[in-house]
């Protein structure tokens, strides 16, 4: 029985990453109408950022949590100005393909530089121990990840639902032309929002570094799970992204209790069910393409 409970925690931990990534993806899509395939690559860069900060500059985990996402978010803003905005007028498929190409470049570039086997990154000493949950110990760090991610998601929700900035973002998401007509400079927000979404992914990467393999391909399968999550949650919905993320994480881990093989397949099976029953997603509104 404790095993199931512990797997639940594993599920919440995994779900945290799904939630953070799909949150960023949903925010970017909402404002830019860009499906950022490179989101997984930015997550990976976040993890490497933490690793390099420690390796080359002796900067520890806590500062890295702030520095890496900031740096990568800024870099992403540059990318948006340089490349992505050239394709806004066209079918969103082109930007999808562009970000796909960027993913390949980033991932393979990192592979050439660092190899695939993964770099070690230790959990910070304050979070290093394990909590006794029944007879088994559960790493404190993973519990931290769950709590921290939830906090970030709540914070982002608050930002979007309760602040003026968030209001502009929401308005631009739902009615861009009307928002412009009301005199709000929607375009001014495009670049920072992209940077913000990417920073969320990079934050996920920093969180992942102590508990996963810091390797160039660490984001490549995750991004596809994230796509399934946003389809389940409903692409336009922030709440949907977070809820679906944690839901998928938990259900996948519970499925693993029955049969380890089910863990990977569950997200897609859920996606199939949602497509059958509620194509717009659990929290989504009518397809706006």
């Amino acid at each position, binding site marked *: 029985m404790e095993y199931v409970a512990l797997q639940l925690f594993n599920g919440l931990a995994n779900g945290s990453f799904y939630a953070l990534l799909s949150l960023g993806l949903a925010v970017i899509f909402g404002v830019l109408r860009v499906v950022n395939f490179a989101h997984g690559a930015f997550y990976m860069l976040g993890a490497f950022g933490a690793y390099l900060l420690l390796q080359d500059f002796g900067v520890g985990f806590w500062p890295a949590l702030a520095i890496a996402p900031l740096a990568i978010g800024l870099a992403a803003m540059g990318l948006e100005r340089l490349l992505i905005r050239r394709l806004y007028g066209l079918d969103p498929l082109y930007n999808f393909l562009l970000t796909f190409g960027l993913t390949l*470049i980033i991932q*393979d570039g990192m592979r050439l530089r660092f190899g695939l086997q993964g770099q070690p990154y230790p959990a910070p000493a304050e979070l290093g121990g394990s909590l006794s949950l029944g007879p088994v110990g559960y790493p404190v760090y993973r519990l931290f990840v769950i709590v921290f991610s939830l906090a970030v998601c709540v914070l982002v929700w608050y930002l979007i639902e309760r602040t003026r900035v968030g209001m502009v973002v929401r308005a631009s998401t739902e009615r861009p032309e009307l928002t412009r007509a009301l005199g709000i400079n929607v375009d001014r927000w495009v670049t920072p929002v992209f940077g913000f979404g990417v920073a969320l992914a990079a934050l996920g990467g920093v969180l992942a570094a102590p508990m996963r393999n810091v390797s160039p391909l660490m984001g490549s399968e995750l991004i596809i799970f994230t796509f399934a999550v946003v389809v389940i949650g409903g692409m336009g919905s922030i709440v949907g992204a977070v809820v679906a993320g944690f839901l998928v994480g938990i259900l996948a881990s519970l499925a693993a209790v029955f049969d380890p093989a089910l863990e990977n397949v569950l997200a897609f099976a859920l996606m*199939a069910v949602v497509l059958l029953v509620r194509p717009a997603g659990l929290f989504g509104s009518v397809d706006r*393409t």
Partner: protein
Amino acid sequence: MTLLPYAGGTLVALVLPRLLYPVLALDILLWGLFAVSVDLLLGFGGLLSFGHAAFWGFGGYAGAITAKALGVPFPVAAVVGAVSAAALAVPFGFLAIRRRGIYFAMVTLAFAQMLFYLANEWRALTGGENGVQGVPRVLPGLSVGRSIDFYYAALPLVIVGFALAIRIVHSPFGHVLVAIRDNEARAQALGYHTWRYKLLAFALSGGLAGLAGALFALGHGFASLDLLHWTTSGTAVLMTILGGIGTLWGSLVGAAVVLLVRDTLTNVPEASGVVTGAIFVVIVLAFRRGLWPTLADLIRLARSRSLGS
């Protein structure tokens, strides 16, 4: 419908394995057909399938397992691959078509990934990581053991597949498909059950990809998880776009270019991801028309110059 591409294409196809390493020529041929299947859906149906490796791979495994278990002549195994892939495309398409545009692409990608995991798990059938090794290829009366012999033996099947694609595009069905691509609402208003057309196109495209994939597995003696990987889907899309969306011929050219570039760079430390990604970025930003239309333009320009002066 000029005859030049057909004559030229057939000639190139016949000579290719003598110019290049035969395995490379075979790869160009089969990836070309795979890319054609993607173009059929994208260029004429307006549907970007980003998970087409599911059909290439499913056909590949089906053909490989059939050949290994039953020892049938390879064309039979190839057809089994094609039909299996087309059958798989029906449920996949049914669910995917419920979304449009970019969502459709994401759903196809997700389903392909699911198939990847399933293949990895169902070890008894697929060999998991080990793959299906030692896939035999037989043709009664002919020896197809050598790569170059298999190339010529498989060529007629590939030509049939390509001819089918051309036929579909120029048929009434194909015209309705294009109409749906351009304005689905109007097509529906005209009384067409658009989702049926899209589903059929998806199944046909899947079947073609399955045919190519089965021949690929037979040609390499191997069916492995790589056939189902999302980078395989991406490469096929790249070939289509590089060649020119909606041209069919362009996909063949795109496949040849991508594979030749990869082959030339083999001596450089394996940087295929960076190269493929860079080609993607450049094409999407600056060269969306693709090679085939550009080539056609150049020929037209040359002709008009010679006529005008």
